[in-house]
């Protein structure tokens, strides 16, 4: 039982993203594969941002939850295919919004930014579209800082990429 793939996936759901502690790494779409090769267990993950300092913490946390049953489990970082916010499921997006973070919206392939076009981010508290970008670089690399001009609350937006 402890050796089935689904049991491993279940336990990986207890590892959270340290910068979004209400979301686990499976919901974030970071865990790509769980593979048994003989006695060996390999978990393959894809980092969200190449320079994300949380990646090392996540690798250690995954080893910790597997240590009891799989002391030799390895965690491998795979770059291909590149992680995208398109992999964050609707439930995880709803959790983000419930925690005051506007989830990523639209397609990650939009190129209109090259000529200065801005996307509209609705306020996660009141739903107003009358919001303003304060800084594209917020508390972490993956978030932008916005303010809502209707309810006057500041909020984070998980950038689309």
């Amino acid at each position, binding site marked *: 039982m402890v050796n089935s793939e689904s049991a491993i996936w279940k336990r990986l759901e207890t590892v959270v993203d340290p910068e979004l502690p209400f979301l686990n790494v499976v919901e974030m779409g970071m865990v790509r594969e769980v593979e048994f090769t003989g006695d060996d267990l390999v978990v393959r993950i894809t980092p969200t*941002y*190449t320079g994300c300092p949380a990646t090392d913490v996540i690798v250690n946390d995954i080893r910790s939850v597997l240590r009891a049953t799989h002391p030799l489990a390895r965690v491998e970082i795979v770059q*291909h295919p*590149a992680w995208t916010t398109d992999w964050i499921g609707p439930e995880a997006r709803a959790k983000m919004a419930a925690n005051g973070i506007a989830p990523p919206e639209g397609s*990650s392939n939009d190129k209109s930014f090259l*000529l200065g076009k801005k996307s509209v981010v609705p306020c996660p508290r009141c739903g107003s579209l009358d919001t303003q970008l304060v800084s594209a*670089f917020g508390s972490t690399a993956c978030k932008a800082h916005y303010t809502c001009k209707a309810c006057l609350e500041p909020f984070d937006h998980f*950038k689309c990429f």
Partner: protein
Amino acid sequence: MANSAHLNYVLRLADDAVIQGQRLSEWCGHGPILEEDIALTNLALDCIGQARALYALAAERAGAGQTEDDFAYFRDEEAFRNHLMVELPKGDFGFTLMRQFLFGAFNWLRMEHLSGQTQDAELAAIATKAVKELRYHVEHARDWVVRLGDGTEESHRRVAESLATLWSYTGELFAPDSIDDWALQAGIGPDLTALHGRWTAIVEATLKEATLEIPSPTGWMQSGGKAGRHSEHLGYLLAEMQSLARKHPGVAW
């Protein structure tokens, strides 16, 4: 699998990223406002993350037990292959943002090509991630170029001076040398002449909006970085960046 031209090509990308990241990190604690201090250090983090992935790829291909750190910390300036533009001192905020824009638009176009059209699958994977991050670099820099150019008399004057200085470093971005020619032939890298056209369209539209005069594309252009002939500035940057690793080889957190 990698021949020396191929390795050289990957190192150029990595060196651009690490030097740009190091220059951006110099703003840590010195940003003009809190949000920009955070923004510039976030941008630095992206660059260093991209550099790590590229150096790790280079190390894997170079073999002989080399690591990403060997490339970043144990090469001297003549071995670095970054463009001259990224090694220039950070200057004032306007200078840094003008460089972020001029180099960033080039780098975005280059990475976009690599993400979809290179024959090198591992490089494509790194570029696919990088291009998404670089999108925000261009957006951020573009906004500031417009705000500063179309801002006060003082901000306009200073950012116009930065543009004049940086312009002579834009030629190197699009002047293909033997490595670029090899990369194009091998289906690894983009056609820099085609890239130049797209870059010019983006830059001209933005500078116009920023009420800045577009410098002549036929003026004198600096070059040499891609061949390892650097300005005096790179040595000082490396001295700082490499000092810890060289004083304590193999040191780890």
